[in-house]
């Protein structure tokens, strides 16, 4: 897979020497070109301004013939990002049927940043947040800012578990709106 590394190395070189606005890429492990850590600065004039989000980019061995996966390591309140410790994103170019091997990661990262400025509530991962975004923008803005204050200030953490644990500790008494725990079972 030497030639695929050549491609990845080239992309990495380009994205570190002339990074797109608000995007910083590092390798957590120098010997592993397939895992990138990205710090994404919230775009100006948005509810996310001043925030720093950690993104984890994983390149499959088949890269660039298979799409990379990009997840938020930092919790974010957004219609197109799952509101959990996994932080999955719904992004057109990353879907298998849309992915093209000539697509560059720099472009993908810019698309993620653009998604923060311009959410797509019609194609949501969090239907409730999408509804709120459309019908009660004030409330949405407020919640998004609360999340920024709680999770996206200070040093960026990429270990999702550590981040989640810390978040839980911070959460304390106040946050009753935690998602994720569905009332399973099914006993009548």
């Amino acid at each position, binding site marked *: 897979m030497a030639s695929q590394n050549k491609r990845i190395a*080239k992309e990495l070189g380009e994205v570190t020497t002339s990074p797109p606005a608000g995007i910083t890429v590092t390798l957590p492990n120098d010997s592993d070109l397939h895992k990138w850590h990205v710090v994404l600065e919230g775009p100006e004039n948005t509810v996310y301004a001043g925030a720093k989000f950690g993104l984890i980019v994983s390149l499959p061995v088949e890269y660039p013939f298979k799409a990379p996966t990009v997840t938020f390591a930092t919790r974010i309140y957004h219609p197109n990002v799952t509101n959990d410790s996994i932080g999955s994103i719904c992004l057109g170019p990353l879907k298998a049927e849309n992915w*093209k091997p*000539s697509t560059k990661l720099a472009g993908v990262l810019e698309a993620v940043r653009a998604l923060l400025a311009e959410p797509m509530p019609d194609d949501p991962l969090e239907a409730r947040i999408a509804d709120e975004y459309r019908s009660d923008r004030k409330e949405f803005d407020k919640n998004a800012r609360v999340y920024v204050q709680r999770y996206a200030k200070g040093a960026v953490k990429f270990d999702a578990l550590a981040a989640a644990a810390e978040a839980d500790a911070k959460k304390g008494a106040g946050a009753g709106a935690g998602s994720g725990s569905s009332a399973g079972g099914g006993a009548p």
Partner: protein
Amino acid sequence: MDTDDDFMSNVSSEDDMLPDDSDNDISGDDDFGFDDEPDAYIDSQKEIGNKRKTAYDISFKVYQPADVQKQQDDFIDEVNMILDISKEEAAILLRYFRWNKERLIEDYMDRPSQVLEAAGLAQTSAALPKMQVIPGFVCDICCEDEPGLQSFALKCNHRYCVDCYRHYLSQKIRGEGEAARIQCPSEGCNLIIDARSLDLLVTPELTERYHELLHRTYVEDKETLKWCPAPDCQNAIECGVKKKDLDKVVPTVSCLCGHRFCFGCIVNDHQPAPCEQVKRWLKKCADDSETANWISANTKECPKCNSTIEKNGGCNHMTCRKCKHEFCWMCMGLWSEHGTSWYNCNRFEEKSGTDARDAQAKSRVSLERYLHYYNRYANHEQSARLDKDIYHKTEKKMVQLQKESGMSWIEVQYLNSASQALQTCRQTLMWTYAFAFYLARNNLTEIFEDNQKDLEMAVEALSEMFERPITELAEPKLKVEIMDKTSYCNKRRVILLEDTAQNLADGRWTFNSELIGSGANGSSSTRR
């Protein structure tokens, strides 16, 4: 894309570049869309509900792989001649238009260059595709730049090395099962890779899979064609029953391989219950599986002496080994009563509303009612399996019998026919109970229940004969009885299906609205 907008809005109501995806657009084609195809189903369409002799028996055709290939070739040849374009291009255009030939021809006549553009065939005059070595070329996918690197580009001139092209195709074909609509690897380029280019690039390991996928699009894109779902079967079935007809007809088809399935939902034959009910019923059974599990258990206690009785044949007439008590496995009632006119093992006695005043009592009644029907449904399913086991055992013995008694292979086929009849009839009986569960009482339900009872009694009688020792089976007298009973069972089944199908087509059944779910529409079948 701007220039395409106008064109696309004519071709399709969608903006994903694929025509004919939506029903609203294509449904108008029913009248003219298929007028010169091999079309037995057109007749069936017209016949449903009025002049046809059997309402439950829909017409369909089975096509073997060579027939499917021939149909595609005929389409391609015709388009090739009418539009004066190459066969490769005709094939690509047909696949792009999801094999709607009329629409392709019409659109192509109107605006050929836009159609070619949209289908990925822009600039048809270009030379045949070829691999090239271009000095100073750097592949934008793998970043290789070594001299002598073979490269390839479509008409859009997005050039990549051949290795990358092959990786890409392999990912699409093997990984994603895509074949007819693979685009240029360049980001944002919608040009579809044409068949000639693919033939050049696809490596031998992939060719077979690639052609198989191309072949499949023909059937998958046509509403009137479905693959037979039996494992290893390559046949396709053609049937004219449309999605919107499925509350009026249960389109059971049977493949040359012997598999019988519903053309509407691909589930095994589920006549007389309509597809929507089947879906609901299967979901309900899955949701309530724990409540109902005990029913399909293989052992029960004798209602008289309480000794454990195991069921190992399909027949529901049980005789306790210990006390010789004869009873019915389904209702645990006396078997002797089952032959009489007031036999009502199949009917659930609806309790009057006053019996169930409070919610708890109501829910108990509704559970009892469900269990009544589920019990019988599950029982026939299980019995069909057990009948089959018995047949396999019998089959072995029959071979032995053939040797000993000198009966010919043909002479023992009556057992095969009996086994087939048991399987088919139990399959039908099984679904009559799902059907009955959703059925609301009206003046027709009694006839249905009588038909159900008659079929059930006939089936149990045949099933019982079937379990007799091998030596008796060979006796001419029993042989004749089995043959008579077999044809009687088949006849009763046809009568039942005919009645249910006719009433379904005419919208005369009423279904329990609270069970169907949509409270507004009690009798979904009376809608027009």
